[in-house]
C-alpha cells in the first residue's frame, strides 16, 4: 500500500471519504478546459523515463492529449461544452452536469484501466472513488504520482480518492456502492456480477464493461503481398503483446482468408519473425506457473487434436502461433498465444461471431469489402472495428457506450414561449 492509495478498513472509511468528495463536487465546479490542461500536463509527465515504459502508458498518454479528448467532448457533450456554454436545441438549451460521485471498479489485469475509467468521469465534472485492485497498487501509485506533480493546485486530485481493500470484503464494496451516484464496472464475469448486485442508490448510473475477447482478420490480398506482409505482422505482434494478451481488446485469433492453393508458410514465417522481434523488444519479466502450464497445454492440445494443425513456438513460453483451419474460436489461452485460422471466405467466418467479440482488427485491401465486413461484424455484436495495430487504442465509444455522456446529466432548459408565465409578446 502506498500513501496515494488509502487502505480502507471499515465502511466508515469509505463513507467519510465520499462525504468529502461530495462537498468538493457540490461547492467547486471546474471547467473542461481546466481538466484538459491538467491532463495534457499529466500526459507529458508520464513520458518521463520512470513511467514511459510501464505497460499501457503510451495508450494513456495518447488518450490524455487535448487533440484526442476535444473531439470526444464536442461529440458527446455538445459544441459549447468546452467553454461551459449551453447548447441550443430548438426552444430549449442543453448542458452537461456531473452526476456527482462516480465509483470505479477496474479489472486487475490492465495497468492503466483505473486511470482511463477515472478520466472519463472527471471530464464530466464528477468526483471519483476508485477501488485499486491490489495487484495494480504499485503501478497505479507511479502513474498517479505524475498527476499530482502536474496538478499543483489540486484541481483534479482533490476530486479523486483511491482506495484499496480485499476483493472479498463485501461490506466495503457495499459501502462504496451506497456512496456513489454512478459506477463504471470493468472485469470478468464473476467480478462484474458481484459488483452489479451491490445496493447502489436507485438513481445511480451503471456502466458495465464486461468480459469479452477480440479477433483479427486479414484478406488474401494483404497477407500474400510481400510488400505489406511484414508491416502487418509487426502490427499484429504489437496488438498481441500489449497487456500480455489479457485485455478484452487483445486479439486471440487471426482469421486468414485463403484462396485456392495458396500457401501461408511465408506469412507464418513473417509472423514468427515479428513475434521474435517483439519478444526481444518487450520480454516478459514474470509469469504465473498456471499460465506457463496453460500455454504448454494449448500447444500440445492443438497439435494432438488434428494432425493437419501446425504450430510455431520457442522452447520458452514467450509466445505461440497455432495454425489451423475453420472458423470456430478456441478457448483463449492468453499469454501471447495467437491462433491463426485459415478460412476460405472472411465474410462467412465473421458471420459466425457474436457479442462475445469486442474488437475486430482488420487488414483488408479492398475498401468496399472492408465496409461490408465492418457492417457484418457490427450486426453480429462487435462494437469496435479498427485497423490492425490499433486494437488497444482507447477511445469513445467503448463497448458501444459513450464514455463521458454516461456519467453526466444532460440538463434541458425549455424556455417559455411568449404568453407563457404571463409574458407578453
Amino acid at each position: 500500500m502506498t500513501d496515494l492509495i488509502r487502505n480502507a478498513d471499515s465502511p466508515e472509511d469509505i463513507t467519510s471519504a465520499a462525504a468529502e468528495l461530495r462537498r468538493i463536487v457540490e461547492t467547486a465546479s471546474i471547467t473542461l478546459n481546466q481538466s484538459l490542461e491538467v491532463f495534457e500536463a499529466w500526459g507529458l509527465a508520464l513520458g518521463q523515463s520512470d513511467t514511459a515504459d510501464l505497460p499501457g502508458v503510451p495508450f494513456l498518454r495518447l488518450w490524455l492529449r487535448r487533440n484526442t479528448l476535444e473531439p470526444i467532448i464536442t461529440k458527446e457533450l455538445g459544441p459549447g461544452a468546452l467553454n461551459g456554454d449551453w447548447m441550443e436545441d430548438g426552444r430549449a438549451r442543453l448542458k452537461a452536469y456531473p452526476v456527482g460521485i462516480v465509483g470505479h471498479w477496474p479489472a486487475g489485469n490492465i495497468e492503466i484501466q483505473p486511470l482511463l475509467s477515472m478520466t472519463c468521469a472527471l471530464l464530466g465534472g464528477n468526483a471519483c472513488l476508485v477501488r485499486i485492485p491490489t495487484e495494480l497498487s504499485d503501478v497505479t501509485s507511479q502513474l498517479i504520482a505524475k498527476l499530482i506533480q502536474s496538478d499543483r493546485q489540486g484541481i483534479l486530485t482533490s476530486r479523486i480518492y483511491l482506495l484499496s481493500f480485499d476483493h472479498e470484503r463485501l461490506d466495503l464494496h457495499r459501502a462504496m456502492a451506497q456512496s456513489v451516484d454512478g459506477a463504471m464496472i470493468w472485469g470478468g464475469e464473476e467480478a462484474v456480477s458481484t459488483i452489479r448486485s451491490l445496493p447502489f442508490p436507485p438513481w445511480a448510473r451503471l456502466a458495465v464493461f464486461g468480459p469479452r475477447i477480440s479477433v483479427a482478420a486479414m484478406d488474401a490480398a494483404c497477407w500474400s503481398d510481400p510488400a505489406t506482409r511484414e508491416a502487418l505482422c509487426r502490427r499484429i505482434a504489437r496488438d498481441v503483446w500489449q497487456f500480455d494478451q489479457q485485455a478484452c481488446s487483445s486479439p486471440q485469433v487471426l482469421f486468414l482468408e485463403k484462396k485456392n492453393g495458396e500457401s501461408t508458410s511465408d506469412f507464418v514465417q513473417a509472423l514468427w519473425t515479428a513475434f521474435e522481434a517483439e519478444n526481444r523488444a518487450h520480454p516478459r519479466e514474470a509469469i504465473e506457473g498456471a499460465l506457463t502450464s496453460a500455454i504448454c497445454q494449448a500447444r500440445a492440445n492443438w497439435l494432438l487434436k488434428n494432425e493437419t494443425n501446425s504450430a510455431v513456438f520457442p522452447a520458452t513460453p514467450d509466445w505461440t502461433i497455432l495454425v489451423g483451419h475453420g472458423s470456430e474460436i478456441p478457448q483463449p489461452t492468453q499469454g501471447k498465444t495467437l491462433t491463426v485460422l485459415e478460412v476460405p471466405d472472411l465474410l462467412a467466418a465473421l458471420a459466425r461471431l457474436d457479442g462475445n467479440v469486442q474488437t475486430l482488427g482488420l487488414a483488408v485491401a479492398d475498401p468496399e469489402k472492408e465496409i461490408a465486413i465492418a457492417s457484418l461484424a457490427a450486426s453480429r455484436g462487435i462494437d469496435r472495428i479498427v485497423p490492425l495495430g490499433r486494437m488497444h487504442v482507447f477511445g469513445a465509444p467503448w463497448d458501444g457506450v459513450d464514455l463521458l455522456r454516461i456519467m453526466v446529466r444532460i440538463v434541458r432548459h425549455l424556455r417559455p414561449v411568449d404568453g407563457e408565465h404571463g409574458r407578453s409578446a
Partner: protein
Amino acid sequence: MNALEARIDELLAVPPYSLSPEEREPAFLALLKDELEYACNRSAAYRNYVRHWPIDPRAAPSVADLPYLPVSLLKADPPFALVDPHAIKKILTSSSTTGQVPSRIALDSPTSRRMSKAVIAIAQDFLGEQRRPYLVADVPSSVAQGPAMGARGAAIQGLMPFASQLTYCMNPDDDGNLRLDRDKLLEFAKAHRDAPVLVYGFTYILWQYLVKPLLAESISLEMPNVHVLHSGGWKRLQDEAVDKASFNSGVAQVFGCAADRVIDFYGMVENVGVIYPDCAEGNKHVPAFADVIVRDPLTLEPVGDGKRGMVQVCSVLPTSFPGHLLLTEDVAEIVALDGCRCGRRGTAFRFVGRVPKAEMRGCGNIIRRRELAR
C-alpha cells in the same frame, strides 16, 4: 520393439540409485530418443506434436531438450494409448478431486510388468527385500478386480510383493464412508508387535481415520519395527493445519516407532512404476530408469540447486502410452543434482506443492459463452 524392451529391462536391472548423472545420461537419453521414435510411429497425433517441437529430438543434446507432454493431455477418454485396444490390460485412473477429469493410463502387459519391477526395486532400497505382514489403512474394494484401477489401488498393489500376509483395517459404513476396524487393527498390532511390518495408507486417510482418533485416545500400537509408507498429497491436511513434522510425530506416536520410519512418497499414476520416497535427509530421489527435471516457469529452462519450479517427470518404463516425458502441475525444489548425504546418487528434490490455479480475472476472461448466459 524387442530390442527396445531389452534395453529398458537392462536399465531396470541397475540398482536404482547407483549411477551418477554422468554415468546414467548417455544410455538414458538414447533410450528415450528411441522410445519417442517408437511412440511417433504408433501415433500420428503424437508424431505431429513431436515434429513441431522447437528442437529436433534426434539432435537433442540432453533429456531436458526432448519434447515433453503436459500431463493433462492424459485425461483423454478413451485413453491416449500407443497400443491397440485389445492389448490394454488395465486402465489406471488418477485420484482427481471432485469435478475434475481424472487421467486415464492404458497399461499393456509389458508396461504393467515393468511397473511392478520398478516399484519393487525402489521400495527394496528403502525397506529391504524381506516380506513382512502388510497392513493397509484402506478398504479391500480400493483394489478392485477389473480393467480399471484408481491411484489408491495402484499404490496398495504396488507394495504387495513385500507382503507375507495382507490385512485391511478399514470398512465402509452404510454411507460408503471409511470406518476404522479397531478390533482388527489392535489384533494385528498384538500379533506383530516386535516384527518388521509394512503399513500403507493414503496420507489423508491414514491421518483422518486411523492416527487422529487413536491420538485422541492416547493409544499406542507399540510396533517399533514398522515402516509406515503414505502418499497422495498434503492439501487436505494443510487445510487442517497439519504439517509434515506434526504428521510424522503423530504417526510415530500411534505406531510406537521412530519418526524416521514414517516415509512419505510422491508419485502419480501417469508416472507409472516410479515412486519417490523420502530418504533419511528428507529428500526424494530419482531412480536410474527415470529422471526429474524442475523447470523455471518463466523460461521452461531446468533450474539448479536450491531453485523451485514446475516438475517434469521422465521415465523409460511406459511403452503403452506416451508417458516418457511429462510436464506436471506440481512444484518442487532441486536440493542437489547429485550427492545427497544419504548416499543415493542422482537428482535429489523436495516436493513443494501444486502450481496455483489460474485466477479468472480481467476483462478478457470469458468464462462462458454469451448464448449460454441468455
